[in-house]
């Protein structure tokens, strides 16, 4: 499998997800749901690495992507004055995608997976509110929250289907991607999702940059020395990690 085939796989899943979410009013006002291709790539790691993969895994990946689309839709609701029709429908888009994920897994009779994923969603909302409450969290706790928010349902999916060995790569890569996006936006003085809401992160941007370097170097090393990952997958991961290096993001603006 080469990069073109990997891109085709990711695109195929993307169009399957979009098929599930077609709703004319939502399309008119909120557009298609947010699907993070990089997250999708890391969700598909076992498939891309040649693991056995049947209809259930396929359905579950679509369901997990819908969870992230639902959460992303709600993250777009403004903190104040969400009174425009677009904003009102953004609220409902998130609820609609949530219902779709539940329906998809219910039809596939994956009740135990629904339970595990619901726990993940509850946990994600708890960690998101850490950026809104007045409690004192440490730098490490907040970075831990970001990692959980970015990857927990995928971790659960991988554990459920016994793809345990992929969890580390996926979690580290998604944390890295998220931190890089944050720093890049912050440097460009654009709105950020986490840094803007945390004094601890804001006053430790240098520490965040060091953390990014540390994760990136260690991840690339682990990927290159992995006995699990096939060469084309190693290449694809390293390419993605380095393509969106901090320097590149800052340079490209």
């Amino acid at each position, binding site marked *: 499998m080469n990069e073109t085939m990997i891109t085709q796989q990711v695109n195929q899943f993307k169009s399957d997800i979009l098929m599930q979410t077609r709703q004319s009013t939502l399309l008119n006002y909120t557009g298609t749901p947010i699907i993070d291709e990089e997250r999708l790539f890391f969700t598909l790691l076992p498939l891309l690495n040649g693991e056995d993969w049947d209809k259930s895994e396929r359905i579950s990946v679509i369901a997990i992507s819908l969870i992230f689309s639902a959460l992303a839709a709600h*993250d777009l609701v403004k*903190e*104040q004055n969400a009174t425009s029709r677009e904003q009102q429908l953004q609220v409902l888009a998130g609820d*609609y995608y*949530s219902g779709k994920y539940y329906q998809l897994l219910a039809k596939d009779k994956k009740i135990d997976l629904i339970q595990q994923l619901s726990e993940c969603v509850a946990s994600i909302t708890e960690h998101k509110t850490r950026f809104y409450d007045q409690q004192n969290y440490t730098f490490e706790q907040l970075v831990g929250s970001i990692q959980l928010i970015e990857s927990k349902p995928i971790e659960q999916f991988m554990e459920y289907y016994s793809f345990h060995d992929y969890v580390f790569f996926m979690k580290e890569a998604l944390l890295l991607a998220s931190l890089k996006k944050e720093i890049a936006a912050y440097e460009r003085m654009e709105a950020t999702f986490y840094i803007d809401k945390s004094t601890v992160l804001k006053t430790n941007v240098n520490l965040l940059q060091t953390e990014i370097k540390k994760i990136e170097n260690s991840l690339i090393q682990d990927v290159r020395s992995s006995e699990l990952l096939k060469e084309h997958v190693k290449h694809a991961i390293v390419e993605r990690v380095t393509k969106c290096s901090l320097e590149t993001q800052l340079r490209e603006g």
Partner: protein
Amino acid sequence: MDKMKLKLLYSDLKSDLEVIEKELAVAVNSSSHLLNEASLHLLLAGGKRIRPVFVLLAAKFGNYSIESIKNVAVPVELIHMASLVHDDVIDDAETRRGRETVKAQWNNRVAMYTGDFLFAKAMEYITEVQNTYAHEVLSHTMIELCIGEIIQVEDKRFLDQTVRDYLRRIKRKTAILISASCELGAIASGTDAKTVRHLKLFGYYVGMSFQIIDDILDIVSTDEQLGKPAGSDLLQGNITLPVLYAKNEPAVAPLLHAMFNGTISSDDQQNLLKEIRKSEGITKAKQLSNLYLQKALNEVKQLPANSAKKSLQNIALFMSKRKF
């Protein structure tokens, strides 16, 4: 609504409703201080708990056990609560049941997370039910509920809508969750298919009647009785059944058009409410609500005889005759 009277009506369920109330408090317990506060804020605001009551009563037609049926009663109430928190963001509502909304006390984003948290908790509970068909019912209900809300946003300020448009909207927005509460309670207790069907239809008809009454009360009640400003629906641009029936009356039509053109004064807004109150719209809407009530009572008649049958009948009658 006179909550005391309603509580008397389901006094047979008192101890089981206490179990549900305690379980709701356990369900919304969170490691997040903020979510805990927001969820408890909602829980303490109370509510009629009509959906859990229907779950429990429907379950009485099968093998009733509060320990297993709470896994249906709790999630339907959590779903209802979650949708209210999100509705308040959509409606930019400052108060509900006389208390500040979550979005007013914190902000929209916290309200979104609170709603998402409650939805997730609802699903954690319902997955204790192993019947896969029950999950198809509930997931379908959640999607339909959303579509109902989507249509409501789309139909706002659209005066050319028909009564059928309105009925289709409230079916999804309200009746379907009450119907699912009855259906799921019956399924989870292993009730026979025929009884499940009657209970499902009963819930649907009661839900329709209930929402029409709710829409009438929004116009005819006082701010104090409602715990929010009277006529909120109309101010939000939601065209409900009394308005649809009254919209062509000479005293109503010009004020209604001015309202949706944004040229109405606050005095005329009050005049509009007064005119709708005096109009045939209220009477006609009550008649339609009664029609649904009769259909609900017909379904009850076909249920096997037991104590829950009388309770369903009484609650349906009370809900459709309530004054606020």
